[in-house]
């Protein structure tokens, strides 16, 4: 079926006029009708808009214009990215009716490439969570086992690519929110270097960590999406003005001569043994293909979660101060005065996890505690970053598990926030250092759930990560496996 194909395979068919973008949209939406009631990956579907955009792409192909590789390709967008004229909720009640008057820079870029937007995907409220269970709207189910979570916070964007209800998607990654759900849903997910992609129009969570990135069915599509979204932007002062290479040039099926480091600190007793086996097998594959593998040490790894749960909530507490009921979003019906309006609006509009993080962050920044918590965390962040700097003197790429466990059951960790936070133990260290990181499918545990291999490189060395990921993919079959979605159960 058309909806099962990759963007690059579909581009060939569109270019050769074997198919039309409109037929592709119709095929995709028929599949959405069948499986979306079970997966629940979307918060908003934009079929009319998709057909309009598909028609435009078809007109270009029919004229024989030179069309960009993503023209006519259906893409889903995490509901934290502002889409002009299309509701953007961030998974929160407080933005239930928010319709952005502008497009995020990534959307402007994608539209210039002629993509077709399928819809907006479900997420943990304000991207705070590791399971997408913190959405104010619905629970998204992992297509590999509908009783399990898809990961988070970009769980919807991962699930729809896994379920073939989008060809590719965009998510955002603050502490692992692209890489972890990609691993749990068996798809490719990449967080580019901090500053590679403009954050303009990405609703802010933790501004020193947030980065937009793609979910795709293979590494080639990942490179194509990076080509479309990367680049500095006058609207984001933290976007970095470095040349953007053609990432498809990094799709080289050869790792000979590349040095891969395996940090011993990631292989703790807390790591699921089946996942450890799967990662060791994947590393052995890369070694057989000619890479040099050596054990390395990143001694401050165990402090990454504690550091993250100060820095991210602190920045979030400041960023989320804007939700005051004045300019947009929910407002309490009948406040007696301005301060009461703020308090009631925020208390009624935010969910529990968001409140917990605002509280944690406000505390960490409050008088008397700022040095002990926030400044301390920023110092430990330096130590974590220094570990990586030293490691990349010796190796080109670091290989680790993406997640310590496969997808867990819905409800399993919701009662214990700290337990949920520890889901990010493998992904937060690289976030602190702003590194590019990809998760690629590298096997399955016995219960049938997918496992992800995380590959990291020095800042702006996405080419090395892509090259190793591509070589691994070209020599393995894991990424070709598709979930059998149980559509016979209750929707």
């Amino acid at each position, binding site marked *: 079926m058309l909806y099962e194909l990759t963007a690059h395979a579909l581009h060939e068919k569109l270019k050769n006029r074997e198919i039309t973008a409109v037929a592709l949209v119709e095929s995709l939406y028929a599949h959405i009708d069948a499986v979306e009631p079970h997966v629940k990956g979307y918060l908003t579907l934009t079929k009319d808009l998709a057909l309009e955009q598909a028609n435009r792409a078809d007109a270009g192909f029919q004229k024989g214009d030179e069309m960009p590789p993503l023209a006519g390709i259906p893409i889903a967008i995490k509901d934290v990215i502002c889409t002009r004229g299309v509701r953007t909720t961030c998974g929160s009640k407080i933005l239930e009716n928010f319709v952005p008057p502008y497009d995020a820079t990534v959307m402007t870029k994608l539209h210039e490439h002629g993509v077709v937007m399928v819809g907006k995907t479900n997420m943990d409220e304000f991207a705070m969570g590791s399971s997408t269970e913190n959405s104010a709207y619905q629970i998204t189910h992992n297509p590999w086992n509908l009783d399990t979570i898809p990961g988070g916070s970009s769980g919807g964007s991962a699930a729809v690519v896994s379920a073939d209800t989008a060809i590719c998607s965009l998510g955002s990654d603050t502490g692992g929110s692209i890489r972890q759900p990609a691993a749990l849903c068996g798809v490719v997910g990449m967080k580019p270097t*901090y500053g590679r992609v403009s954050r303009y129009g990405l609703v802010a969570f933790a501004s020193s960590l947030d980065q937009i990135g793609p979910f795709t069915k293979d590494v080639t599509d990942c490179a194509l999406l990076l080509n479309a979204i990367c680049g500095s932007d006058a609207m984001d002062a933290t976007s970095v003005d470095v040349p953007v290479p053609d990432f498809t040039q990094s799709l080289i099926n050869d790792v000979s001569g590349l040095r891969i480091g395996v940090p011993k600190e990631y292989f703790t007793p807390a790591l699921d043994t089946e996942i450890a086996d799967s990662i060791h097998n994947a590393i052995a594959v890369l070694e057989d293909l000619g890479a040099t593998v050596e054990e390395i040490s990143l001694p401050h790894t165990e402090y990454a979660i504690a550091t993250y749960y100060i820095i991210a909530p602190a920045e979030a507490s400041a960023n989320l101060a804007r939700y005051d009921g004045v300019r947009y979003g929910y407002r309490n019906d009948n406040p007696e005065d301005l301060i009461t309006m703020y308090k009631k609006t925020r208390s009624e509009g935010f969910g529990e996890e968001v409140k*917990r993080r605002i509280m944690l962050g406000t505390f960490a920044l409050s008088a008397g505690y700022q040095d002990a918590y926030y400044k301390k965390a920023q110092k430990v962040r330096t130590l974590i970053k220094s570990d990586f700097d030293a490691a990349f003197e010796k190796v080109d790429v670091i290989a680790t598990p993406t997640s310590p466990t496969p997808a867990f059951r819905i409800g399993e960790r919701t009662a214990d926030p700290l337990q949920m936070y520890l889901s990010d133990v493998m992904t937060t260290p690289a976030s602190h250092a702003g590194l590019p990181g990809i998760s690629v499918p590298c096997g399955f545990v016995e219960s049938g759930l997918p496992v992800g291999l995380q590959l990291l490189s020095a800042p702006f060395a996405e080419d090395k990560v892509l090259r190793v990921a591509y070589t691994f993919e070209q020599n393995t079959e894991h990424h070709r496996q598709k979930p059998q979605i149980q559509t016979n159960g209750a929707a």
Partner: protein
Amino acid sequence: MATITTEGVRHVANLARLEFNDEETEHFTEQLARILDYIGKLNELETDDVPPTSHIHPHQIFIMGSQEGAAHVAKPDVVKPSYPREDVLANAPEPEEGYFGVPRVVDRSH
């Protein structure tokens, strides 16, 4: 590192413009204390001589120019078109005569 009391939670909630009932206050106190206890593990590390990282690309520009060695890059001071007022007000809960309406702050009788 200190822990947090119900009193502390009430104080922080007020700073954050949130309000909780007694049960929620207890609940948050318990959870935040547990998280802060875990975060306390950072005290195992000696960091007196470690500079803090506020941004991971030290060569990168900042409007505030706060980082050592960071170049100042200013944008040309040119007026550019902004979004139309009606588009921006379209999301406002209570727009009023082209402005954002809020509960009265100043008493007109004085």
